[in-house]
Every structure is written in structure tokens, then in C-alpha cells.
């Protein structure tokens, strides 16, 4: 008896978003016309891209197991960027300007722009730039970065339903992409994209951050919201078909389970491996739900996720018709 498994065809597809321009080697994401990883029945021009997070100041709250691979370069963004790309093989970077937060150093917009500029000098991968979080400071910091780094195709993180106008304007003015962040809610994600489109933002330059719940801390909410966003996109909803970015590292390493030493909870096993597993499980689960960009903290997680994705997408870099190297690992392999 033969199996009559019909491939599922959908009316819609994801938008293709290219991150990085100017002096960047661009990375394109999205464009797939099926459920995540369903390569057996749909076409995916790009594999999910893997980013590492670097910070402008020493992230003192990071636990030792995730600080260790970055020893010597924490708080030195250009050096950290070089290590992330050359040694760890990141496809792109998220520069987290945490030091601009009023409680964490209150660094100025000028300092922030200089930090991002130094990273642009050090590496040629695309950058996601994350501000200090909602509020006036976020806008002044990211607006200054956007202006000073015009034409580099940064992804500014993030615009929200309550506060999107400034970032929408600077993204359009200086040629950057924009991450729209909404609180684990399909309708809010859609509403934000409508607002951005009304503000003349090209949705082909927008990523959706649906807010990541880490493993054990709301992962299931993110998982189902992302599945629903993907189904809406495949159903043809042009306001929900932007690729999704997930800030996995931040959430995974925040978990108590990634922080508690083995001697305190003997049944929990090795702290280092447990933390990496926490990040691997969060990342893999969210890629299954439709993440097209995942931002990680531990290079070992990146390595393990990359090996998984190789099974679907092959280990050779693919080239699109413009000859852009997609998420190439080869360039970095030369440095090993």
C-alpha cells in the first residue's frame, strides 16, 4: 500500500529581508513558502541565520559559563565582534548597547554610535543594534547610531506599538532595517506592521520580534504565537509575513536553571552543559516554530545549531542570483 502524502501548498510566502548594506556582506533571510524546516514540500531560499550577541560594556550579570568564551573581550565590542565572526562563525551580530541604560552606565548616544562604528570597522557582517529598552533614551541612542552609520543596513531593535515613529523615521531616512517588537500576540504584531507600513517603512526591511520566552519561562507562548504568525503569512497575510527574529541567548541565560551551580542542585547536573542545553533547546524549538534569525550568546550553542541546520540546508554556502553569499561559514572557516 503506497502512502498518499500530498505536499502542502500555501497561498503566501515569507518576505525576503536582506540585512546589511554598504560595507557589509549582506545576509538575506526569509522567503520560504512553507512551514518552518518543511524542506520536503516547500522551497526555502535562505537558511535561518545565526547571530551572536556582543555588548558595549561588560555584561556583569552574565553567568560565568557564558562569560568564559568571551574572556578578555567583554565590554570591548570591536574585539568581541572579531572573535564572534572569525573564531565563532557568527553570520551576523547583535550589538546590545546595554551600557546606555540609565541604570547600567548611562553611556551617551555619541559613545553608542562610536561603539557601533568600531564594530563596523572590525567585521563585515550585518548588525542588529539593540538599544537600552523602551523609553526616550532608546530613541536618542538608536537615532544617533542610525545617523552615524547611515547606509550600513543595520537592523534597529526595536520599535513597539507604543513607540515606533522615531525609529520608523530614522530607519527610512538612513537606510536601515527595523525590528518590530510585540508582546507574544499575533494581533499586536500585525497592528505594529500596519503602523510601520503607514509610516512609509518598507515591510521588506522589517523583522518581527514576537518576544521570546525562554525554555521554562513562557517558551510555549512564543512557540504557538510564532506558529500562528507563520500560518497567517502562508495564508497570504501581507502584514504578518516578515521573518521572525528571536533573542534566544538573553532569555535562555536568564533562567534560574542556567545559573544554579551543580553543588546546589545535584540532580540538575553540570551547570555549564545545562546552560548550553537550555540555550540549544530554546533555539531549536523556536527555529521549528519559525525563527529566521536567532540571537545566541554561547558560541558552542551556535556551533551545535549550525550543525543541525546543515542537515536541512547543506554545509556549503548558497548563492542567490545577485551572487550574495548567504550565511556563509566558509569565510570564517579560513580563520580557524
Amino acid at each position, binding site marked *: *500500500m503506497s502512502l498518499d502524502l500530498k505536499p502542502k501548498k500555501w497561498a503566501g510566502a515569507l518576505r525576503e529581508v536582506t540585512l546589511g548594506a554598504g560595507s557589509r556582506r549582506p545576509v538575506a533571510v526569509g522567503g520560504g513558502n512553507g512551514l518552518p524546516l518543511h524542506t520536503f514540500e516547500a522551497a526555502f531560499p535562505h537558511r535561518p541565520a545565526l547571530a551572536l550577541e556582543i555588548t558595549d560594556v561588560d555584561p556583569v550579570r552574565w553567568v560565568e559559563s557564558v562569560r568564559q568564551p568571551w574572556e578578555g573581550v567583554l565590554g570591548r565590542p570591536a574585539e568581541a565582534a572579531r572573535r564572534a565572526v572569525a573564531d565563532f562563525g557568527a553570520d551576523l551580530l547583535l550589538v546590545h548597547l546595554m551600557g546606555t541604560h540609565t541604570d547600567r552606565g548611562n553611556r551617551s548616544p555619541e559613545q553608542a554610535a562610536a561603539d557601533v562604528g568600531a564594530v563596523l570597522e572590525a567585521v563585515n557582517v550585518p548588525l542588529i543594534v539593540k538599544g537600552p529598552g523602551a523609553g526616550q533614551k532608546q530613541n536618542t541612542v538608536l537615532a544617533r547610531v542610525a545617523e552615524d552609520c547611515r547606509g550600513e543596513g543595520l537592523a534597529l531593535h526595536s520599535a513597539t506599538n507604543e513607540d515606533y515613529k522615531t525609529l520608523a523615521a530614522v530607519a527610512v531616512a538612513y537606510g536601515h532595517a527595523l525590528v518590530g517588537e510585540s508582546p507574544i500576540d499575533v494581533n499586536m504584531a500585525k497592528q505594529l506592521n500596519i503602523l510601520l507600513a503607514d509610516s512609509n517603512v518598507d515591510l521588506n526591511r522589517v523583522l518581527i520580534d514576537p518576544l521570546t520566552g525562554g525554555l*521554562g519561562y513562557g517558551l510555549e507562548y512564543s512557540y*504557538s504565537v510564532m*506558529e500562528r504568525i507563520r500560518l497567517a503569512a502562508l495564508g497570504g497575510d501581507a502584514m504578518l509575513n516578515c521573518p521572525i527574529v528571536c533573542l534566544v541567548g538573553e532569555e535562555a541565560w536568564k533562567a534560574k*536553571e542556567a545559573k544554579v551551580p551543580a553543588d546546589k542542585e545535584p540532580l540538575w547536573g553540570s551547570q555549564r552543559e545545562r546552560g548550553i542545553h537550555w540555550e540549544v533547546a530554546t533555539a531549536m524549538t523556536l527555529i*521549528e516554530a519559525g525563527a529566521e534569525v536567532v540571537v545566541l550568546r554561547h558560541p558552542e550553542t551556535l556551533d551545535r545549531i549550525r550543525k543541525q541546520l546543515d542537515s536541512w540546508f547543506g554545509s556549503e554556502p548558497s548563492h542567490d542570483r545577485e551572487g550574495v553569499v548567504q550565511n556563509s561559514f566558509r569565510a570564517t572557516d579560513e580563520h580557524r
Partner: protein
Amino acid sequence: MPLTGLQIFKLLPNTNCKKCGYPTCLTFAMKLAAGKEALEKCPDASPEAKAALGAASAPPIRGVTVGRGDRAITVGEETVFFRHEKTFVRHPGLFQIFDPAGLTAAERDAKLDHWRAIRIERAGETFQVDGIAVVETAESVAAAVAASDRGFPVAILAATLPGATAIAERIKEHRPLLVPPAGANLEGYAALAARLGIPLVVGAPDLASLADAARDAARAGVTDILLEPPGADPRLLHHSLSAIRRGALDRIHPGLGHPVFLCVGAGEIEKAVLGITKFASLVALADCGGETWLPLWTLRQNIYTDPQKPLQMDPGLYAIGEPNDRSPLLVTSNFSLTYFIVSTEAEASGVACHLAVVDAEGLSVLTAWSAGKFSGDRVAKALREMKAAERVSHHTVIIPGYVPVISGELEDALGDGWHVLVGPQEASDIAPFFRDVWGPLARDLGTHP
């Protein structure tokens, strides 16, 4: 395929006798179609109607039970592809792969006792080792008996038919799961499973032969079957898992309507993650450390949470760190996500504190307040029930920054000597709040440690 209301209506007597409690047969048929009523309520339903409805309402994926007694585990009976469509019902069993070769009886028993003693409480669930997958070696009969005696459901990872037969015969009363070796001729194993009435795992190199093999095993008299999906690499495994679930729900082949079994080797947590998220029902793990099991238990808990109801914490007073009577007292709702975020941030602040989790019916703070579930009176009543007054000497309670409006009512309801302090709106601001607001205040109150 489920029947529509009209299809069911045609099977009913159409007498509108109202014995079912509904005014017409059509109304009752609609309720049946929605799964909200049972056909037993119609005393005049014909045998044909019962047969037709029974077949249509049979779950697309059969339920299978492994083991007997308290720890027996039933898997399968799933009805959806996406958890948000309804919910995933029966969470996958996580079995410990156990190779007893070379162990003395004492060493073997020590391991089994250790696994049996593991209990980890998390968000209202107790994580434990659900079963033991015994690798067939010379020592395996005794090991399988020892595991069964401890109440564990047992999977027999067979190497040879005679060896597997010896183990299965000894523990057949405990309903072990028979797992033939990869590529084995299934006939002998199916005959064994059928004769002993135990569940069987069926594997094959591709999906079509897997479905056929399961159908053949059923014809050979095996009632309870699990499928081992083709999965030489992650891509193929993901394809197989997705196709089996979809094929089962669409009922394209009777051989696909069974739960899925997955064996995960050492250092392969990614494979287990794929299995747990994508429909595997029994996962046997070679790794035995908490660094592998804890993330997988937690992932299973997340994925198998019913998305239709908000996850709730048990109300009560939770300790963050090791608080004393001078530590701050925070109050929040029992929506799990709220609790987890607040407790994580409070813990990250490095300040030990008491966290009072109030029964807000699983709603977030602001939603609960709008619905009248987080009023001053309700919070006060909860704090009294938790005997908060005996736990903190400063009698100051910090409320979420989104509901300053309940301050007055709460202070009145708590009575003399209590102060209400409005905390931050966002959990991420708890640390600065402790530093900038609570710190100086605590010094003023003379309660700073």
C-alpha cells in the same frame, strides 16, 4: 474522519422525543458533532448509528499503555498538528536507557533506586524518570525484573529474538514495550508481542514500509503499536515525524495511526528536542545527567501545557533566596508567566525577598485587576491567609506598578500598621527599585539588615 452534525442527524431516530434533554434530534446531533454530548443519552439510537459514530469518533492516533500500576504511562490519542488548534494531550514518556552489562546486582540496584528516587518539582508538575529502557545483554532478565519490581514501565531494547523472549516472558505481567533491533525481521517479534499481549515498536527504512509494517503487525494480532520513524539525520527525522502526524490525522493509512517511539543516543539532546516538540510519544535517552533531563522535562512541560487555559501557579508565599523578616514582600498574580518573570528578576537582583502569589485565576496583573480578581480586598485576604504578617516585621507590601489604584483599598483592608508601596511596572526594574526605593526606606524603617 469526524461526522458533521447533519450526517449524525441522519443516523438519529428523528422523533424529537427530548429524552436526551434537547428539544430536537438536530440540536442533539449538533452537540454530538461538537463533541459536547455522548450518544448514550439517546435511548433509541440504533446499533448502526452507534457503530458509525464510534468509528468516526475513534482517535486518529491510538492510545498505548506501557507498564502497570501507579507509574504506567499512556501515550497517543493526539488530535492536532499544532498545539494552538486545541492542545497536545498525553505528554511523551522519557525513558532512561540502561545497559546492565558488567554491573553487579548491587550496582544495578543502586542505579535503579537512584532513578526511582528522582523527583523534581517545577511549576506544579513532578518530573521523574518515566521508565527504563533495558538494553538486552546476558544480565538483562534480572535487570528488567529489578526495574519492573520498582514499578518502572520497561522497554526491552532487543538484540535477539530469543533474548527478548526470555525478558518479555519474565515481566509480561508488567506490560513491557518490545523494541526490536533496527532492521530486524518483525514477524517473530510481532508474534511474541501478540502472544504476550504487550506493545511493540515497529521500524522501517521509509514511511511507506513503516505504515505497511504497522498494518501487518496489527493483522498479526498486536493491538498496541508504536512507530519508530526513519531518522538517519535531523532533516529526515523531522520529515518523518511531521508526515506521520499529518498522515495519521488525515487517516491516509491505518498504519500511521500510532504513537511514535524515539531512541536518543548520548550527546544528542537536539534529537530529543525535535522529538518532544514534534509529536514523539516515548523517548528513550542514553544520557543520564540532569543537564540533559532537566531541559527536556521542562520543554515537555512547556509544549504539553494546554494553550486553552492560562498556566497557573499555586497561590502562596514563595521565598526568593533566603529571606528573613526584614526582607521585602512583593505581591503578584498567579499567572505563571508573570510569576516566572517576577521571580527571575527578583532573584537576579540579589536581594532575598518574599513573593506573595495571589490567586488571580491565572490572569496577568492588569487583566486580573480589570476583571476584579486583583482588588485590594482580594490581595489583603490572600496575604492574611498566607500569614504574611508573621513573616515580615516591617508590614510593608510592594504591589505591581500597574495597579497603584488598589493601594488605598488594600491598606484599609489590611488594617493598622500596614503600608502599601507601589513597585515598578516592569519586572526588569525590580533590581533598581530594591536599590533606590526599598533600600533607603528599609533603613528609615530600621529594618535594613
